[in-house]
């Protein structure tokens, strides 16, 4: 019931913002002040995989194509041109040609051409060494055979196979076009783009400032004079700062549902949206390290989890329960309720599952008196720690005694990549609600972000099969099956699908938030302040 009410409220807010947007004329001027949660690792979107970099720097860039601002759900049908003016498929959908906008200039005055597009995707697909320090989404671009510059205003992507999701991936906030002539180290510290806002300064642990790009190719836009992000690590300080009016909004998806309630109680006019952040809590089990090389122990571990308790404690029941793909109605590809009930460990009777888990453990010689001791590693920040503490409590039910090992961010990622952990509690976001993104990034053999080194060649055939399918419904059936197999295999058991809140003062207009991702609507070229 409360879920239904909440959805209605979301719809109401959306409708309201649409209506007000249409009824009022945009005003020029003002600086949009936003609270930021932590220090972005760098300013280079292509090198990072966090909202901390994506949101503040998205306004510096443009994509070839984007999700239409007013489309509430990020999906193929919502893709519209940005730096491209149009696109066309040929050669049985294996060739994709973009016509490019004329007269667009980089912030340093150089003209934007098709070379820049080729450069960008040559580097991110790993064909050319662009001197980037990291390339977290290389697996997204597995389908690119080569990229050809037809003329300065036309570029063609040749694909190995037809891939409907290719356009979807190009539309995300994580797919900006980079300038060919600016070296990678500079993009990390002083990014140059074609976007509505120019980079001014990035003070470590303090602030990020952008200013209006007067020569932006959209006439009259952007409306804002600038955007300023202030880094306030403590959520409660950030909330108070927002309420005091010192800030206009908070970094997207960062407020817990509890805090959102609090904010709206204090400031009745405050606009807030709690939405799936496309971030999931998942369990990493190191299948190479004894005793977890035994599938039975992995299964017992998974059976101890009470997903509903996670959702209740971490979010008052707001977090979704589902598999790898985001649950409907916000998500496009998640299981239906009926289908989910058929997946092991997702049944309503947790006690029954735990009983089964205990039986497994008992058969292996463990008991309440002689539990299996293990370390649960996690990143030393609240979201991770809280989930890990819950996990440890749940593991007790199947004779497993866990001890938390909190690791600083730097060490955490190092250990993941080295597979130097036994059991890990991980929280991971994906930029776009799309099966290609999810499966190829996290579950293909040998992928960098496949932290558990799960490798199932049969399943990989299905990854490719669904990737080429045009029929949405048919594709969805396969996606559901894949997702089910992933959970059955305990590849990376999904514990919860997180939601996060974004709040902004009513005087902030022209914001667009999609219900199935927090990463893709921060161009802010049509945002404005009614003051």
């Amino acid at each position, binding site marked *: 019931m409360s879920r239904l009410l909440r959805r209605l409220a979301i719809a109401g807010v959306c409708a309201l913002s649409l209506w007000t947007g249409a009824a009022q004329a945009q005003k020029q001027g003002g600086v949009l002040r936003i609270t930021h949660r932590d220090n972005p690792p760098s300013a280079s979107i292509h090198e990072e995989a966090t909202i901390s970099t994506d949101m503040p720097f998205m306004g510096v860039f443009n994509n070839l194509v984007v999700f239409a601002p007013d489309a509430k759900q990020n999906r193929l049908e919502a893709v519209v041109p940005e730096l491209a003016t149009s696109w066309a498929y040929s050669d049985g959908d294996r060739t994709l040609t973009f016509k490019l906008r004329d007269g667009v200039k980089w912030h340093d005055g150089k003209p934007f051409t098709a070379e820049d597009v080729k450069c960008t995707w040559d580097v991110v697909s790993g064909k050319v060494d662009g001197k980037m320090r990291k390339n977290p989404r290389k697996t997204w671009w597995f389908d690119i055979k080569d990229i050809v510059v037809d003329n300065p205003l036309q570029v063609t992507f040749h694909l190995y196979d037809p891939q409907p999701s290719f356009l979807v991936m190009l539309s995300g906030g994580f797919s900006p076009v980079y300038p060919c002539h600016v070296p990678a180290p500079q993009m990390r510290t002083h990014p140059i783009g074609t976007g509505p806002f120019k980079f001014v300064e990035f003070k470590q*642990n303090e602030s990020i400032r952008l200013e209006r790009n007067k020569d932006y190719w959209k006439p009259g836009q952007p409306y804002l004079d600038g955007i300023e992000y202030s880094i306030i690590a403590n959520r409660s*300080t950030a909330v108070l700062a927002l309420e005091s009016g010192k800030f206009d909004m908070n970094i997207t998806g960062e407020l817990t549902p509890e805090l959102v309630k609090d904010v709206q109680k204090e400031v009745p006019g405050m606009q807030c949206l709690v939405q799936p952040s496309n971030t999931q809590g998942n369990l990493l089990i190191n299948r190479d390290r004894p005793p977890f090389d035994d599938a039975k122990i992995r299964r017992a571990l998974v059976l101890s989890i009470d997903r509903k308790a996670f959702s209740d404690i971490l979010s008052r029941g707001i977090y979704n329960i589902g598999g790898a793909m985001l649950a409907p109605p916000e998500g496009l590809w998640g299981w239906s309720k009926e289908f989910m009930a058929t997946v092991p460990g997702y049944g309503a009777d947790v006690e029954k599952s735990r009983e089964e888990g205990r039986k497994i453990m008992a058969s292996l010689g463990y008991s309440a008196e002689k539990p299996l001791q293990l370390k649960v590693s996690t990143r030393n920040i609240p979201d991770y720690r809280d989930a890990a503490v819950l996990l440890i409590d749940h593991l007790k039910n199947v004779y497993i005694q866990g001890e938390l090992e909190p690791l600083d961010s730097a060490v955490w*990622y190092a250990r993941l990549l080295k597979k130097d952990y036994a059991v890990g509690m991980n929280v991971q976001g994906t930029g776009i609600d799309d099966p290609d993104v999810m499966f190829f990034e996290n579950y293909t053999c040998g992928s960098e972000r496949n932290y558990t080194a799960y490798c199932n060649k049969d399943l990989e055939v299905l990854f490719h099969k669904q990737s080429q399918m045009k029929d949405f419904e048919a594709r969805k059936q396969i996606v559901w099956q894949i997702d089910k197999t992933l959970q059955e295999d305990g590849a990376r058991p999904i514990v919860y699908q997180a939601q996060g809140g974004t709040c902004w003062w009513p005087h902030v207009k022209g914001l667009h938030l999609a219900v199935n991702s927090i990463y893709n609507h921060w161009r802010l070229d049509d945002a404005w302040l009614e003051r």
Partner: protein
Amino acid sequence: MLTYLIRRLLLMIVTLFGVSVAIFLLLRIVPGNIADILFDSAGMIDPSEKQKIIADLGLDLPLPLQYWSWLNGVLHGELGFSYVSEKPVIDEILPRIPITARLAGLALVFAICAGVPLGVISAVKQNTKLDYALRVLSLSGLSMPSFWLGLLILMACVRWFGTIPIYDRAPASIWAWIAMLAIPAASVGFRSSALIMRLTRSSMLEILRQDFVRTAKSKGLSDNAVTYDHALRNALLPVITTIGVETAFLMGGLIVTETVFNIPGVARFLVEAIRWRDYPMVQNLVMFIAIVVVTVNLIVDLLYMLVDPRIRYSE
């Protein structure tokens, strides 16, 4: 005097040299190679980048040579590059120093303004209820973690004013500036004020017991005149002692206070740098803190000599 000064300066250099060796070694006995940690933690993929890190940090050189190149850089004001921001370390540290310095200064002002008068009152009213109350207050000042005090003040602000002081890089006026820093300064300075109070009290008691005060009183000078004249003259020592003892502790207090109040100073920056294993930054920040502590201690010792001629340094 001059020989003493020269001797102290030489000792100071020896100490700092020792600090630099200690911190250098401490960061190199860390399990795992720094280059590995940096390389992996950033999720880097290009092996040539790893080679570059190794070359940049000089990790391919023998230890003494590495140390020498760092020391040489420090002496020439070249501190290397931060691995997180890729900016020169010096550019990251320098702008943050004034923020912390102001906070520390304000905290000290608060500590003196509160500590000295309360200490004097406590001594004059020795063994009265007021004295006991003040002594308990000062002891509780030494017992409360400064971040908790900070949180309590924040909670009070929320309850009474509905909001809290939020750090602003460019406050509108000097008053806004003071208002913004006053609360963090008070919460970090409370401890120092408690210490000043204790020391002032005990040194006052000693003086009140001395003969010349009794003589002055018996000569008919009014109680108050004697007490406060001496109080002010003798308040200086406890204050100086406190500064000497507390600089190191204040640094710790600043680290947590800057974290609680979200002040982008140099103290909190150390924690961030440690979290990101930004070793060039950590190494130089710790060195910087040591320099501050050692310098303040030297100044304190010199001030002692000036204020209290009884202290001689003939050793």
